[in-house]
């Protein structure tokens, strides 16, 4: 059985070719802009050289952002699965969790960012972690609730038919049935958390890619600004293609005929 590499499947060459085309187009546009506005837009070569000269700082910033995002994402994942499970098993918990889902979907990421900065302070890592968690949570919670709903409608009768104990059914039937929903939502949730947590970092003073981007902007170090932006994009694409897409393919491997 062959594992899918993501929701959309390409052959190895065409998959890489897409990124090559986008990379070449982006670099060309960047180079043209740098020629048109040489005082504001440094060339790709200048930015990449700046990145190479400051590789240590870039690695530290990237590590900070990644740690913040992964911590926030993990907290959101645990909370969403716990609440989704509670909603699946308790008639009383379900309306509360459903309502919570609607409420958290409607809160802006900027509101979370400012609220966490006020609560945890401008120099605390927790502000960025909190924003990452708050961004990822609604995405995962929606998917988990949908997953449990589908799992119960597909396997509820089977569970009753063989009189399977609720706890066993939860761990051996419902949770595995929810995994594809969880992994698919994790892909977008982690991406969103990574994009938004840099906003909280920009407002705060703890460090990370967002903090550095804002610092470069204020100090007019545009080659640094573009280099760190490029690095963030590369990191997100690498994370998606090398980890999350493969994980999603793994979680759906039994669906392949």
């Amino acid at each position, binding site marked *: 059985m062959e594992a899918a590499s993501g929701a959309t499947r390409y052959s190895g060459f065409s998959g890489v070719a897409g990124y090559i085309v986008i990379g070449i187009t982006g670099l060309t546009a960047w180079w043209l802009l740098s020629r048109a506005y040489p005082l504001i837009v440094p060339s790709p070569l200048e930015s990449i050289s700046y990145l190479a000269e400051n590789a240590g700082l870039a690695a530290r910033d990237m590590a900070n952002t990644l740690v913040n995002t992964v911590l926030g994402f993990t907290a959101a994942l645990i909370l969403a699965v716990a609440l989704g499970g509670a909603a699946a098993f308790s008639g009383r918990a379900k309306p509360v969790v459903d309502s919570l889902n609607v409420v958290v979907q409607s809160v802006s990421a900027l509101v979370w960012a400012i609220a966490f900065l006020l609560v945890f302070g401008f120099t605390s890592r927790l502000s960025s972690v909190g924003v990452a968690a708050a961004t990822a949570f609604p995405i995962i919670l929606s998917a988990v609730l949908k997953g449990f709903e589908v799992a119960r409608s597909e396997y509820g009768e089977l569970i*009753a*038919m*063989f009189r*399977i104990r609720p706890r066993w059914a939860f761990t051996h039937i419902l949770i595995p049935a929810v995994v594809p929903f969880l992994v698919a939502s994790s892909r977008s949730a982690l991406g969103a958390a990574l994009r938004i947590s840099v906003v909280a970092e920009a407002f705060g003073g703890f460090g990370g890619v967002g903090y550095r981007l804002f610092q470069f902007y204020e100090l007019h170090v545009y080659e640094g600004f573009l280099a760190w932006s490029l690095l963030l994009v590369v990191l997100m694409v690498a994370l998606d293609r090398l980890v999350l897409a493969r994980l999603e393919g793994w979680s759906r491997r*039994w669906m392949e005929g």
Partner: protein
Amino acid sequence: MDGRVALLVENLRVRLGSKEVLGGVSFEVERGETIVVLGPNGVGKSTLLKAIHGIVPYEGRVKAAGNTSMIPQSDMLLPWLTIERNIALPLIASGLPEKEAVEKARIVAKRLGLTEYLDYYPKQVSGGTRRKTSIARALAVNASILLLDEPFTGLDINAVMELQRILWEIKKSGATLVLVSHQIAEAAEIAEKALILKGRPARVAWLADLKGLRYEERISILRDAVWKTLSGR
């Protein structure tokens, strides 16, 4: 209950929400017999099986001499488990040690000709093999009464013939079968009794003993009964 009787259903009433689905159904099946339940779509045939199995609340009396096991209309196999693990699922879920459960599953799989598919996932095998897996899973729990919900539906002719052979084997082992089906010819092949459900709420509109009759006679009686009962002639 008479020692010959495997399943006694008396004045069975089932209400789902505000709707009464079964309105006093009565029949009995002797040990080793097969009864086929016929009726239009949505009349409550599957609900009857679920009530006998005890997974929907009912009024009236259902008495079974032994455990019941149900084979659902959709196979309800877990796609992330292999055929072997799907067969062993109810045994493992009931607390039987995994090794023992798998061993039992392999014995049932061999009986149904599934040995070569044990390591496959459900999506990798044909509809007929999935149906056989669902039957094997029901057989693995050692029930003496099997409740089959439209087992021939969606199968090609080869799979139907294979399934009939399996049902004959199960019958020969002494099991009692309650078979919901739309396929009169396939049902007539193995049934000693037949009933037709009709109305809202559904009641037994026709019940007949087919024992001792030749296949052609059984099929003719069933066709005639279905035609007269369901067309209201």
